[in-house]
């Protein structure tokens, strides 16, 4: 059973989490700057969604965006080790920054 949403919901509620929007925006930027074609993005996203389905992931918004993030990481011309290190750096930066202060590396 498909659950239709409210087609008249205000535009401001299009993304449940900021990272959802950031993921699609980064994918758009990669295509826009010529680092990937629209077809490469669609194929990578389709493959990630298919993997999620095979793994039995629930058919939810979070599953969709996690697949989009996986597709984005696979398409971005970046070293996976560098990505992982940068993620740890951000994590450490959040942990050492008092709440309310800007978080910087």
């Amino acid at each position, binding site marked *: *059973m*498909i*659950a*239709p*949403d409210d*087609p*008249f919901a205000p*535009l*401001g509620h*299009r*993304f449940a*989490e*900021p*990272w959802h*929007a*950031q*993921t*699609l*925006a*980064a994918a*758009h*930027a*990669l*295509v*826009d*700057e010529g*680092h990937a*074609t*629209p*077809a490469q*993005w*669609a*194929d990578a*996203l*389709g493959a990630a*969604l298919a993997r999620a*389905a095979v793994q039995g992931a629930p*058919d939810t*918004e979070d599953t*969709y*965006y*996690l697949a989009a*993030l996986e597709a*984005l*990481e696979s398409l*971005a*011309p*970046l070293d996976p080790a*560098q*990505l*992982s290190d*940068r*993620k740890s*750096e*951000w*994590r450490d930066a*959040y*942990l050492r920054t008092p*709440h309310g202060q800007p978080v910087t*590396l």
Partner: protein
Amino acid sequence: MPTFDSKKIAHAHREVHAHLPSDPALRVKALESLLVEKGLVASETIDNWIELYSERIGPMRGARLVARSWTDPAFRDRLLSDAGQVVKDYGYQGHATEHLKAVENTPGVHNLVVCTLCSCYPFSILGMSPIWYRSAAYRARAVKEPRVVLHEFGVTLPEDVGVRVWDSTAELRYLVIPERPKGTEGWDEDHLAAIVTRDSMIGTQRDLSVEPA
């Protein structure tokens, strides 16, 4: 002797982690910061996209095209033969709508749009796609059992109305032109555009209400 207040420590621990973004949020942050740092993308491009698709671009653009197609037969012909160019003429283009095909509902035909691979969608004229459009259930079932899916959206098609399902790709997206409802004779384009819904332009709605959307 040092004291160990487990409640206090647990509280402090929760406080710290409450402010720590989720794992995927940190992954996106890492990716974005590296892409920007290496000059591969501009942070403005990302910020602009988020602002546009969170707050500004919605289905009203598509609704305007549909409304004009109801009142201007020459425009309707142009929309049906070269929707990509029409979208450019309106300044609505994006790489998702460079190649766009408009398909019209008639008394005997209903059109339904899906992307079976992922979530290809004419973002620049309809705004962000609804989450159900991206769900595995819709992507798989819209092609296999379109009438059942339509029924779940509240559309019961008579048997003599045929269904055409259009599978979007990165190279070609679709816009459904719903039928103009009775009781709208003499309405101007703005008035007409106000009753055209997002779902009617995807095809999960067939009959439009004459009340503003």
